[in-house]
């Protein structure tokens, strides 16, 4: 079981409460970005492309608490930037725990070992560590050699100290499903509570625009990865959302499900797109023209999106909003092997990214070339 019962109960009662009140739109997770500064410079990231004076700014703890209360969501995800670089991140977390919010502190973990003494283990606090796969894949993806080892040190320290720890993994075109499955084995062995997965999104402002999965390729990749599951793999996500990624379900986007607050205000319409800002949460919900967003809207900026920030809320809504969704969730929770001969066959095929780039193959070739050169030099 990836999510503790108390958290499931809190979320279930919150969603059912809104349904009883007949509310069509309500937030599930607040995406609280207390800063944009980061200690990585990933080429595919669209969150850090700002001038220095913007990157130096932080939300104060009081601004964070006001946003959390205004929004009312039972869960708060703290991405960024790198939240552990915020000078008062411990005060922000402490205040949110006091408000009984389930927090996912999304970190690359480069500073986790150094800063972990600032935090106390709590059922409300989870370190959600960004790890994009096995060592070489992760380092390549985050543009930092050695990043994986540093992140793993942080993960192990947090697990040892009794914190809730999950991984969150973003997959791009060229991802090797066999390597991702081997990565799951490694993470479960380390003792993380669960794992989270998402396809990458091609941010308008990111330097790299070329290596993001389209929807057809996303479904094939996730089907290969998540079919024929091992019994010990635990995912800290809605099982229906994972089925959506595998192409077993279709959902419309719920862009208001995970609203985003940062130094500019309430971001319209969602965590990924920046189409302006509202000054209050109420203004965000009332003034945003929601029909213009989501893949089904025809908005080209939404065309490749299958990201959790738009679709996991749709899956959760399905669980509590329909009998078939509820039965599907129960079934997926207790019978999650997803045996599939076609997916198994896919695992035997070579990785064929559209842009002809296979990280592991290239890395292995480079390593053999280096070894050969050294032998030739010695000879």
């Amino acid at each position, binding site marked *: 079981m990836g999510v503790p019962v108390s958290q499931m109960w809190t979320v279930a009662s919150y969603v059912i409460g809104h349904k009883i009140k007949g509310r069509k739109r309500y937030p599930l997770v607040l995406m609280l970005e207390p800063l944009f*500064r*980061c*200690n*990585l*410079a990933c*080429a*595919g990231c669209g969150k*850090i*492309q*700002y*001038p*220095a*004076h*913007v*990157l130096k*700014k932080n939300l104060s703890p009081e601004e964070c608490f006001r946003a959390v209360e205004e929004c009312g969501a039972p869960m708060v995800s703290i991405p960024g930037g790198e939240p552990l670089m915020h000078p008062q991140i411990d005060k922000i977390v402490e205040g949110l725990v006091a408000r009984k919010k389930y927090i996912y502190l999304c970190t690359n973990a480069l500073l986790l070992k150094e800063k972990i003494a600032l935090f106390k283990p709590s059922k409300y606090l989870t370190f959600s560590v960004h790890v994009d796969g096995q060592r070489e894949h992760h*380092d*390549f993806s*985050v*543009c*930092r*050699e*050695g990043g994986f080892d540093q992140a793993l040190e942080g993960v192990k320290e947090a697990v040892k100290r009794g914190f809730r720890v999950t991984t969150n993994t973003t997959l791009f*075109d060229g991802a090797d499903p066999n390597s991702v499955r081997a990565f799951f084995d490694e993470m479960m062995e380390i003792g993380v509570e669960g794992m989270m997965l998402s396809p990458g999104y*091609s941010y*308008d*402002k*990111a*330097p790299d*625009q*070329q*290596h*993001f*999965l*389209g*929807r*057809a*390729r996303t479904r094939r990749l996730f089907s290969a990865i998540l079919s024929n599951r091992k019994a010990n793999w635990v995912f800290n996500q809605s099982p229906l959302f994972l089925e959506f990624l595998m192409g077993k379900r279709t959902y419309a986007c719920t862009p208001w499900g995970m609203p985003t607050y940062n*130094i*500019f*205000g309430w971001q319209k319409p969602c965590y990924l797109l920046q189409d*302006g*800002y509202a000054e209050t949460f109420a203004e965000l919900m009332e003034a945003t023209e929601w029909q213009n967003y989501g*893949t089904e*809207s*025809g*908005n*080209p*900026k*939404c*065309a*490749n999106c299958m990201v959790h920030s738009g679709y996991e809320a749709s899956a959760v809504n399905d669980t509590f909003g329909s009998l078939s969704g509820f039965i599907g969730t129960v079934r997926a929770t207790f019978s999650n092997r997803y045996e599939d001969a076609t997916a198994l066959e896919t695992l035997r095929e070579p990785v064929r990214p*559209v*842009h002809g*780039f296979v990280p592991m193959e*290239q890395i292995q070739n*480079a*390593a053999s070339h*280096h070894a050969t*050169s050294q032998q030739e030099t010695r000879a």
Partner: protein
Amino acid sequence: MSGTTSADRPTQGNAASNADTLEVAPGAARAQIEGWAPELATPDELRAALDQAFDYRGDVTITRKDGTKIEGFVFDRRKGASLEQSFVKLMPKDSDEKLAIAYADIAALAFTGRDTAAGKSWEAWVRKYWEKRAAGEKGFGLQPDSLE
């Protein structure tokens, strides 16, 4: 000089029907507009230039009709029925306040700040990665920009 475009993205009409068959995300193309000072002779030129300022990944300098200049990052624009009812919102370089400036008050616009993502291509990282690995180096990577 042309500005930011989404030339590689599918058109609005085809996007919904084609989305489920997409193999890779089409991405957006970006023209180099750092240093550009667009002509603002007509209301349409002004609106188009401020759209580009909103998409820009660096600071711009706005000159008001009273001659005052303000440099900062444009993070929002609200389009009303007239230039008087339309606003850009920016975070000035030298203060914490958020300013709203009516389109009607703007005399000139220049893309004076550095485009913070320009030149940081994936391909550049791939080249660096292979070179460093082949040389047996450890701990290399792309570094965040200096904040000074």
